[in-house]
């Protein structure tokens, strides 16, 4: 088994326990989508595109009182070590569902009855924590599309490796560590929209991990906000 934390409390990639991987974000990168965003979170490279509100197809799925939120999380065949089949896997279908449920509390779906809002997320390169990176990118793409939202949604994963609580697990830490705890929240409204866990944590450990996750979400929010404002200023300059 690989040693994930050395005696100097440094992780395999040289990070401190509560240190995030470098994050780069850009919005409005796709001309043809209504809204789009690109995120580089460590080695994760994810692109999100948003369409809508548009006519709902098939029409029987349209909801009379609100918009239907559709989400597709898809990993490119070249995004992982071994070629992945491009057809949606069980994991991708599940992640599409949890991303949709993490974003829907923030969107004013009631404003657009009988329509659909579509979110497409393409993972170009994956390295652990891609669901929280996808939520962060999709939320920025929704804001870029001009869709009314109560707040932006940001995510960050925390976990437990070698008995220690750490922030932002990479692929190897996720696979060989003990617990992965992805959290997504609306930082201005103090609301949590996603909380998952794949292992046991004591009450104290959970409290510590959750607090760390919310702190790191705030840090990611600042990056997301900065990227959105840069995109907005570029758009207004063009117009």
């Amino acid at each position, binding site marked *: 088994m690989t040693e994930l934390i050395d005696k100097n409390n440094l992780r395999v990639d040289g990070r401190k326990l509560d240190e995030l991987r470098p994050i780069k974000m850009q919005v409005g990168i796709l001309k043809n989508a*209504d809204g789009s965003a690109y995120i580089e979170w460590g080695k994760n490279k994810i692109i999100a595109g948003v369409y809508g509100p548009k006519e709902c197809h098939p029409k029987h799925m349209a909801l009379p009182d609100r918009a239907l939120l559709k989400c597709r999380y898809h990993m490119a065949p070249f995004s992982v070590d071994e070629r992945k089949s491009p057809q949606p896997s069980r994991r991708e279908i599940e992640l599409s569902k949890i991303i949709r449920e993490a974003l829907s509390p923030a969107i004013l779906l009631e404003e657009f009855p009988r329509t659909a809002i579509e979110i497409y997320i393409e993972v170009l390169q994956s390295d652990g924590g891609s669901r929280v990176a996808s939520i962060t990118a999709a939320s920025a793409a929704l*804001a870029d599309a001009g869709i009314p939202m109560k707040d*932006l949604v940001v995510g960050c994963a925390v976990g437990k490796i070698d008995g220690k609580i750490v922030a932002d697990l990479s692929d190897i830490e996720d696979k060989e560590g003990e617990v992965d705890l992805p959290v997504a929240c609306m930082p201005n409204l103090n609301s949590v929209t996603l909380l998952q866990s794949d292992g046991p944590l004591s009450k104290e450990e959970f409290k510590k991990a959750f607090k760390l996750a919310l702190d790191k979400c705030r840090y990611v929010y600042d990056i997301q906000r900065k990227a959105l404002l840069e995109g*907005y200023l570029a758009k207004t300059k063009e117009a």
Partner: protein
Amino acid sequence: MSVDSKPVVPGEKVGVIEEFSPSGLTYEKDGEIRSLVLGEAMYDKANRIISVKSVGLKSKIPKVGDIIEGVVEAITYSGPVVRIYSVNGREVSNDLSGSMRTRDIIGNPVRLGDVVRCVVTENINNTLWLAMNSQELGVLHTLCTICGANVTPLPPDKVKCTKCGFVDSRKMVGFKPFFSKKHFINKLDHEERNRRFKFNSARKYR
């Protein structure tokens, strides 16, 4: 009037209700005014109002009174269905369609595949109803239904094929509507009805 502005993202606090009233594209929660969209928060200090100016949705849903352009996609029992491609001259990509009511049209003002300009008369829960009831509305482009060649308009309500000479009915842009309000008697307008009745009776027994 002094209006300040600053760029904001959704959910960002723009003010408090003690100082300002929330207006367009903002909402209030626990006494704080927050933005709903990515845009510019406008502070109207004279009227104490905050609103957010957004770049706007790229996929715009038309409102009542908007002029749309599109292609007739189907002709159903309830009327022609138009696939919308532009709203008020601005191209849209949101795959919306609207219908014209059979009661609003006489004869065959449009055919399948025609490019039309219509006005939105009703938006019932995002189901759009359209009409072509003025001179500047109607078919923008059409072809002969028999041979597919170009047609020339024959006012007031026909087009003629340049190749086979087939004459078909259309409500082209620039044609007056086939019927308008003046063709109907308002049932509530008793005075007008009585006046007409009296006039006709007088003529009858003259």
